[in-house]
């Protein structure tokens, strides 16, 4: 394996892990809120989170540039203040992967949380548990299978992210070139051996993740 291919694989795994951790931190509380609370703007939050699932990744990527780019709504002021922009860094790849993977986790986890019997939560309330403790001790443990499944989907999605990553992070070898981007580049430049190697590596990695997830799911039931 060439140096570039190895660095792409390493980067992809790092990006996918970081994106999955971010997904867990953002997505699980979000799924709980959407499943169990009614609040103003709930439908809007649901819509915004789900949108990347149906939009072309390049469109999602474009929005991310508008938001985070050097002249973006958020990215602009940050650049003006610090001279630093997230665009074209490996953080950008993480953000793109996170946004693209989030709907998969939120939807799966939300369905799992909604299927937890509310009487169990009521029972916990009468036994002295706050809503917060009840979520941690009853609801989320019982929704565990769905949440784990959602995290696996999110990881796989993050691993394979292409369009939005290309838009926000670019394709800088050794810096933001993840495996899918490296495969594209290799095919474009006729380096078929490199392409096949990366395709097989990504396939093997995805299979491994699915098998591990299956084991986890089986143990949890």
């Amino acid at each position, binding site marked *: 394996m060439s140096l570039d291919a190895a660095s792409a694989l390493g980067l992809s795994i790092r990006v996918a892990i970081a994106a999955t951790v971010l997904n867990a931190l953002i997505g699980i509380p979000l799924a709980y809120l959407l499943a169990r609370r009614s609040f103003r703007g709930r439908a809007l939050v649901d819509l915004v989170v789900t949108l990347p699932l149906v939009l072309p990744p390049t469109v999602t990527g474009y929005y991310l540039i508008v938001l985070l780019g050097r002249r973006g709504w958020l990215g602009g002021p940050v650049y003006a203040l610090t001279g630093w922009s997230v665009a074209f860094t490996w953080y950008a790849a993480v953000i793109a992967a996170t946004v693209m993977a989030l709907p998969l986790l939120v939807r799966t986890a939300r369905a799992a949380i909604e299927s937890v019997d509310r009487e*169990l939560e*009521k029972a916990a*309330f009468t036994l*002295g*548990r706050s809503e917060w403790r009840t979520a941690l001790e009853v609801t989320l443990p019982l929704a565990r299978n769905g949440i784990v499944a959602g995290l696996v989907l999110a990881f796989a999605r993050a691993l394979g992210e292409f369009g939005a990553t290309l838009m926000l992070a670019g394709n800088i070898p050794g810096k933001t070139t993840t495996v899918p981007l490296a495969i594209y580049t290799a095919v474009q430049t006729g380096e078929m051996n490199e392409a096949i190697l990366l395709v097989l590596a990504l396939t093997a990695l995805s299979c491994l993740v699915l098998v591990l997830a299956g084991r986890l799911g089986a143990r949890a039931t």
Partner: protein
Amino acid sequence: MRHRFSVEIKKQLPGFALDVSWTAGDGVAVLFGPSGAGKTLTLQCLAGLIRPDAGRVVIDDRVLFDAAAGVNLPPQQRRVGYVFQSYALFPHLTVAGNVGFGLRDRSRSERERRVAEVLERLDLGGLADRRPSELSGGQRQRVALGRALAIDPALLLLDEPLSALDAPLRRALRDELRSILSGWGTAAVLVTHDFTEAYRLADRIIVYENGRVIQAAPRSELLWQPASEAVARVMGLRNVLHGVVVKSMPDRIQIAWRGHTLEAVNSPTRTYLPPPETPIAFFIRPEYVRLVRKDRSLDAAHHMNRMRGTVVGETDFGTVWSLRLRLDTPGEPVQGDFDLEVEVPHLVYEILEIDRDRQWDFSIHRGSIHVLPT
């Protein structure tokens, strides 16, 4: 310890209004009535899971809810144990984990001691490490009870605790539940729509109908003196009939019905003296109507309120037969095609050969005709 609690709840839901007020004390108060009468809603208001629109809930001088004063303790602070209809055991925790769930604020050793004590008392000693899915229906019920009792609740709420069980187990557990409740001495409110269950488990029965309380009384008073026709119907009493008062005295009431003058005992604890010509409702339990045997000489003193009728229909319930009798007096029958439902044991049906012989004299003791004041 003497318990005393009073409940006053108003709650408006789409298409349903709950407006109840009752009190209870030591022992078991049963909320009895048809499905959708507001019984479970009342329990949820008592537990703080639903906020009433108005009213006041006081348990042993502790105000749990008072709309006027703006008091509404959250369920976490009410110390009210709740046994759900489905038991709502935590499937991911063991029996010990379930029973100890409400004891989080106690030290580990004290929690373990309390859990062991509760399991012991409920005969669940060997099952501490089992999961709910590994238990029988009866064991689940006891775990649910134990979980609610472990927190030493000021009040125990039970929502149809026997409905998840099949019939033979239901009977056995009904009596077991009664002895657990009386042994534990916790004041309890139990919901059921089954009158036998209500009677077996209750000290006091509160009859619900369509979001209102139509009678609240000790169980035997309810059984023998339902307050109104509505209560009689909710209890599923048969032969609820309408007549006209002929004469009323403190100990007797005479009622004109279907061409006969029936004599009924007036309620000993009520002074109900309706004037003549007042319409009056009453009921006759089918098993208390006595057929007069044709092969014996008639002992008139034994048979009061005598009438004659024809069997126009019958239903075989196995050990008893239900006969539908139409009186021979002129006029339309009052219950569709018959006037009176009569229940006789299977053996009597065979001995008297009722399948062949359809014309019968029968009598009703005045103590078996129950007046329903409105």
